[in-house]
């Protein structure tokens, strides 16, 4: 980041910004804010990862060794919340901040001041969330989905979590309003909607999903709060409320939320694959339509999370078929990525490795998703490790791998320096090995009936749990290698050539110097 800063002076005019800490506090520059988003999400990734290490250490062997059950529950709950709201989502917003203006030829985000504000809400929310471990009664422990009645009975930690979710929601909504306005109103002349890079398209659709469902999440946690403190009975059976209704409203948010976390990674992969195949993306317009159909379908499948909560058979059938239908547009995307690689002049630098790893493992996660969509099977695997394995295949080897691909792909543009290719490849192969070691065996544990969110287990599960824990420790350590690679690249990486990837065709590579200047596209480029 220092490199961007330093080089910016070379480009001269009006970048007089305060130096030191005040530069970051007051900045309205989309690149600075993007950088802060990325560092913040990486810090949260390490915090959430530390909690995961605690969980896996406890599950290393049967019995209670290091975490008391209450603390174990707090660990699983906060691991989920921090990874979803603190690590994955802000990381994608960081990419949007850096890339969206450069890819559409805009000078900055539409509302630069609001952009600054939506970032600085995040550390506040994170402090509330992490700080809740230290209040009497500890952090929220009812799972990341905070179902009542557990969440109406918990202590102060639950209130802190609710406020934290409010703040994170506000930040996300401001961020998405900014992104939508930037994409719709600030494109360079000639940059029509159907010429926009796919990363921009996926983020546009994601931002719409965010303004659609984040307010509903804010509403449902507000209901929880008034149930807890102001005598309402939305979810309290004694007062005529219904805890199952919470699940319906929560998952009306929650299911689009999982697509919010995966659509931008589809975008990143759709930039990386064509670049390293040296071919244009196969079926661009079908990719756009597939993304839109996934987003629309994601709003009508929420009850597949609650097949065992009690539902008429006709409801189960509707949600089962609607869920399985999502496999169609997703299949279109996987087909298009594969067809893009077909007969391309492929090279396998780190971003491409992560993108191919993404396709490979995301498809496994997608298939286990279709299996979970089938009602009779879901009733068997509900709340078992099979579900854990499924959503880690889509969230870790899906979203996270795509984030790694994007980071390696764009770091030369951001810093003007190259990362260490050998270490990058090590990072990929170690991640790939340890990820599968951790999560593949969890399919077997789930099918054998091991329940999630329990700190102890039957002896029959011992071997697979030990393998899974060893994999998790390896995966955790491997991510420190990523931190080293990035710091090494920023501080002393080799100078990047103007065009480090010769297949790249988007504006930030073709129309801007490397590293990108502090202010870019003050005069919009003409796109032909």
């Amino acid at each position, binding site marked *: 980041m220092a490199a961007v800063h330093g080089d910016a002076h070379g480009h001269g005019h009006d970048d007089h910004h305060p130096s030191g800490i005040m530069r970051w506090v007051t900045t309205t520059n989309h690149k600075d804010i993007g950088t802060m988003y990325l560092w913040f999400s990486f810090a949260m990734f390490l915090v959430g990862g530390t909690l995961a290490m605690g969980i896996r250490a406890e599950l290393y062997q049967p019995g209670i060794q290091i975490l008391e059950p209450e603390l174990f529950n707090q660990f699983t709950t906060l691991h989920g919340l921090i990874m979803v709201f603190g690590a994955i989502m802000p990381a994608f917003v960081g990419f949007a901040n850096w890339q969206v203006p450069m890819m559409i030829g805009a000078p900055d985000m*539409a*509302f630069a001041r609001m952009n600054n504000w939506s970032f600085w809400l995040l550390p506040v929310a994170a402090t509330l969330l992490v700080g809740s471990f230290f209040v009497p009664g500890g952090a929220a422990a009812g799972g990341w989905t905070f179902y009542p009645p557990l969440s109406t009975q918990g202590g102060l930690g639950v209130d802190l979590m609710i406020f934290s979710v409010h703040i994170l929601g506000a930040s996300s*909504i401001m961020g*998405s*309003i900014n992104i*939508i*306005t930037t994409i*719709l*109103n*600030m494109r360079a002349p000639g940059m029509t909607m159907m010429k926009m890079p796919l990363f921009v398209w996926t983020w546009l659709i994601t931002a719409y999903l965010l*303004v*659609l*469902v*984040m*307010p*509903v*999440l*804010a*509403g*449902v946690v507000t*209901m929880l709060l008034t149930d807890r403190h102001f*005598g309402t009975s*939305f979810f309290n*059976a*004694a*007062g*005529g409320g*219904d805890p199952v*209704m919470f699940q*319906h*409203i929560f998952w*009306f948010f929650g299911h689009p939320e999982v697509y919010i976390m995966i659509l931008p990674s589809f975008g990143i992969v759709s930039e990386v694959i064509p670049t390293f195949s040296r071919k244009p993306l196969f079926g661009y317009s079908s990719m756009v339509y597939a993304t839109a159909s996934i987003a629309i379908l994601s709003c009508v499948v929420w009850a597949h999370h609650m097949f065992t909560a*009690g539902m*008429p058979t006709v409801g189960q059938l509707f949600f089962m078929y609607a869920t399985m239908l999502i496999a169609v547009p997703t299949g279109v995307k996987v087909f298009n990525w594969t067809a893009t690689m077909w007969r391309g002049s492929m090279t396998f630098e780190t971003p491409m490795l992560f993108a191919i790893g993404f396709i490979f493992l995301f498809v496994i996660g997608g298939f286990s998703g279709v299996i979970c969509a089938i009602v009779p099977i879901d009733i068997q695997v509900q709340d078992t490790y099979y579900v854990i394995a499924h959503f880690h295949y889509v969230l870790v080897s899906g979203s996270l791998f795509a984030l790694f691909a994007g980071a390696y792909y764009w770091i030369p543009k951001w810093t003007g320096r190259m990362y260490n290719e050998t270490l990058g490849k090590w990072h990929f192969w170690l991640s790939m090995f340890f990820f599968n070691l951790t999560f593949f065996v969890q399919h077997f544990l789930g099918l054998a009936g091991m329940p999630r969110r329990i700190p102890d287990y039957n002896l029959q599960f011992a071997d697979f749990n030990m393998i899974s824990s060893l994999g998790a420790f390896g995966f955790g350590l491997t991510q420190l290698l990523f931190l080293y690679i990035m710091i090494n690249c920023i501080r002393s990486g080799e100078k990047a050539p103007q065009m480090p990837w010769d297949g790249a065709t988007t504006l930030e590579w073709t129309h801007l110097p490397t590293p990108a200047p502090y202010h870019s596209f003050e005069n919009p480029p003409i796109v032909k």
Partner: protein
Amino acid sequence: MVDNKLEVNIVMMKKLLVFTLIMFVFGYALVPFYEKFCEITGINNLLQPDVLTKEIRVDEERWITVEFDANTRGLPWQFRPLQSSVRIHPGQPVNVMYEITNDSEREINGQAIPSYSPRFLEKHLKKFECFCFTKQVLKPNETRQMPVQFMIEPSLPVDIQTVTISYTFFELPAGVSAVKK
């Protein structure tokens, strides 16, 4: 030109903020929508009397054991069924009595919320009369006996031989009318 651009952006922001607000209200609107949906489709219809719409034949070949369970939560009442279980034929109407006693020195309003096991019993259970349909007001140290009149339809799957009907009394704040759903 620049001002114009900013204006266009601000119009866009206002539209999106209004949309956000609409979605927040929509979240709350889901609550009455959900209740209405359950009422119309007859899901979750626990606190309203059922009426018989057709003649039901008593299946004298089958026996079902109905167990009764009674709990209180957070109020100083004693609550128990006068018989712990009955053996009945499907289709046969039954009347059972429960007893509540207020052990405290104040007047308390309470309402019972039912719960069934197996869960799908609700579909096959017709309740004609129940103390859970209204709130119960007990003066200090008052004891009251209350009836439940119900019938289990012969449509109950044949592999079910024992079912449980459970009630839990919750306190209603003074002035709150009974819950109906």
